[in-house]
């Protein structure tokens, strides 16, 4: 029994060695973004509204069993690509009638309010995430980021970075259509 203890380090190391060999041999790419959130329910979170912006806050309950597809967009007033993406979000809500909600990431309430005053507010609800905690649960890698959530509250698609106009037709709208079915 005592001798087994002395062999244990060797056994553990050999196990790790096999895993390393596999990792080198299988040609896996560790820099692939994990897509663990796809087809998973939205994470648990509850965010208050942004002060001085006249739309309510955002919580998990607002995304589960809503009976419609929702776009969740993470944005910040200081984020230059968010500004570029904004007219596209406005158009998606006005022309396509998509329900859009926002998570305001690491922002000042005044700055966010000014941003939305200048550019228009397409969001039905906005949750303020000044510390970035809830965004962490969403697996955020940067702003902007957009998620397509289906009627039951499952994440169906994740878009990293701003949505370009061609991607609306080629990617976003087809996925929304599919999620509606």
């Amino acid at each position, binding site marked *: 029994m005592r001798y087994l203890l002395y062999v244990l*380090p060797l056994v553990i190391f050999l196990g790790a060695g096999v*895993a390393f060999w596999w*990792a080198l041999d299988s040609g896996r790419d*560790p820099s692939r973004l994990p897509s*663990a959130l796809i087809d998973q329910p939205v994470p648990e979170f509850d965010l208050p509204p942004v002060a001085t912006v006249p739309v309510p806050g955002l919580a998990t309950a607002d995304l589960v069993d809503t009976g419609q597809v929702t776009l969740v967009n993470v944005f910040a007033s*200081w984020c230059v690509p968010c500004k570029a993406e904004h007219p596209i979000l406005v158009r998606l809500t006005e022309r396509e009638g998509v329900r859009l909600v926002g998570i305001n990431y690491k*922002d000042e309430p005044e*700055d966010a309010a000014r941003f939305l005053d200048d550019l228009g507010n397409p969001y039905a609800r906005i949750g303020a995430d000044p510390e970035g905690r809830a965004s962490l649960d969403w697996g955020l890698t940067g702003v902007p980021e957009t998620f397509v959530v289906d009627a039951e509250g499952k994440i169906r698609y994740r878009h990293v970075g701003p949505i370009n106009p061609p991607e609306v037709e080629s990617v976003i709208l087809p996925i929304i259509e599919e999620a509606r079915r």
Partner: protein
Amino acid sequence: MIPELGHFALILALLVATVQTLVPLVGAHRGNPAWMAAGGPAALAQMLLVAVSFGALTYAYVVSDFTVANVVANSHSLKPMLYKVTGVWGNHEGSMLLWILILAVFGAAVALFGNNLPPSLKARVLGIQGLIGIGFISFTLFTSNPFERIFPPPLDGQDLNPLLQDPGLAFHPPMLYLGYVGFSVAFAFAIAALLEGKVDAAWARWVRPWTLAAWTFLTGGIALGSWWAYYELGWGGWWFWDPVENASFMPWLLGTALLHSAIVVEKRDTLKSWTILLAILTFSLSLLGTFIVRSGLLTSVHAFASDPDRGLYILAMLVVAIGGSLTLFAVRAPSLKGGGLFQPISREGGLVMNNLLLATATATILIGTLYPLILDALGGGLVTVGPPFFNLTFVPLMLPLVFVMGLGPLLAWKRADLPGVLSRLKVAAGVGLLAGLATLYVQNGGPVLAALAMGLAAWLFLAALTDLAEKVKLFRTPLADTWSRARGLPRSQYGTALAHAGLAIAIAGMVGSSAWKVEKISVMVPGETKQLSDYVFTFEGVERLPGPNYMSQTATFTVRDGDGRLIATMTPEKRVYPVAGMPTTEAAIHTRWLADLYAVIGDAEENGPGWTVRLYYEPLVPFLWLGSLVMMLGGLVSLSDRRLRVGAPRRKAAPLGPAVQPAE
């Protein structure tokens, strides 16, 4: 011509390393004194040859010899001289050569200063060092030759990754390698002891200075790396639990455990097989770190360009070195006899506690680092393990450790009087409690953990001072007597107190910056002001300025305090290095000693005068760097202890320099 000389010297070094391995090991096995004595000259010859090789590569960088592929890929004729030289180790091939050079220097130091070692032990230690040398030199020659030529030579080089053109990172790799490679000596001693079948107090006394030196360098290396991440990456943080950071932190934790368990072997002749195992595992983790960084196995912000062939070669090396030594351990260690018995409440007990907590912490980090890979191997898909995991598991292990650290040095060997020790520490306990409560009050609803950690940091700091005060009987005997006691106190005692107090200071820095950091990201137009904590930042605008090998967009902020007095002008930059085609951010940091003010400039608005600006108020971060320095000082003071020099009557000259400091 010069690069070929370097290449040739490296090939010769490989042959010499083979001699250094075979002859002394066989000699020690057969008891042949002449063969055993061959280890010393071979180690010196190896160092000389590797130095020539390293010098040749450095020369190629200094004169910008663009017929050498490695220089083309990592240098540029306009680069400042400092970064031409540090570019030598700012890439995979060159850094392997630096690693080998340091290994050879340590080998030569054992040969030069190990005269009081029993000949067979010295022969075996040098033999094992030679074997490690064979592994790394052949790896470099066969998979990563830095002397390869390129034809036709290009007009100019591709420049060093601009993130690495930085004074902090220039000296981070040498320090880190001095630490990693320093543990190879402890490893060689452990293997040699297993071959000899003998571990005693003298053995522990020989191992300790090497471990101490390696630990001191590694502390410095990690602190420098963390400092670089803090000011160069511009994310306002100093530690990200990134695989490469963890790779350097694990040997540090286990090396710290080794440092302490070696004391028990030396003083009490027990914990032998555990200490041997720690010595093996500490170096194994250093090797594992190399493997992770250079094989592209895990993603990291710091990784070198990776290559699967290299990965397989290092993996084979790992299997031989770690697998071989653990096999030897499994066969030989059970026959090592333990010595002195002790009560749970004793100095030994405290050190065992230290070892258990440090080893558990290391295992936790190892699991967290490798978990994504192992889960993927078992078909579980890709996951990332982030800071929340490490904070949740590592911090709870460190809190009891810090508590025991305060007690440990005051406990007596064999059996300690706990109530007595506690009563001597009542001031430290009181101040610790007060510091915790004051933190709780001042932060007003902030994290309770932060208050607890601040209390423990104060406790540890004062307990370290109390330990010294007790030993010199401060205020209990006349001052003259205290003074003579203070002079007579072994330096290792001062080292312990300094290292422990340094950690206390560093903990305060860690807590402050993680619990009370204020971050403000916004778009600012010139002339706009923002308030952060008690400071008002005014954005004055952005200028375009040329640098030696980059273009800079330099922003200017003036910072005023609550009364409107000008405190600082801060100039964060965004640089573009046209040759490497890479942008970097240069954070502006103004230290107020109790806190840092930190500013980073981001992108300009597309059609507007605004810029994205990140402002941070970083409380207590300077304590982190100060604490690290005090810890290193503790290591150096302890290294100068007389105990580590006695028994070396034949040595006359002082050690040559820091790299070869730890004699015998």
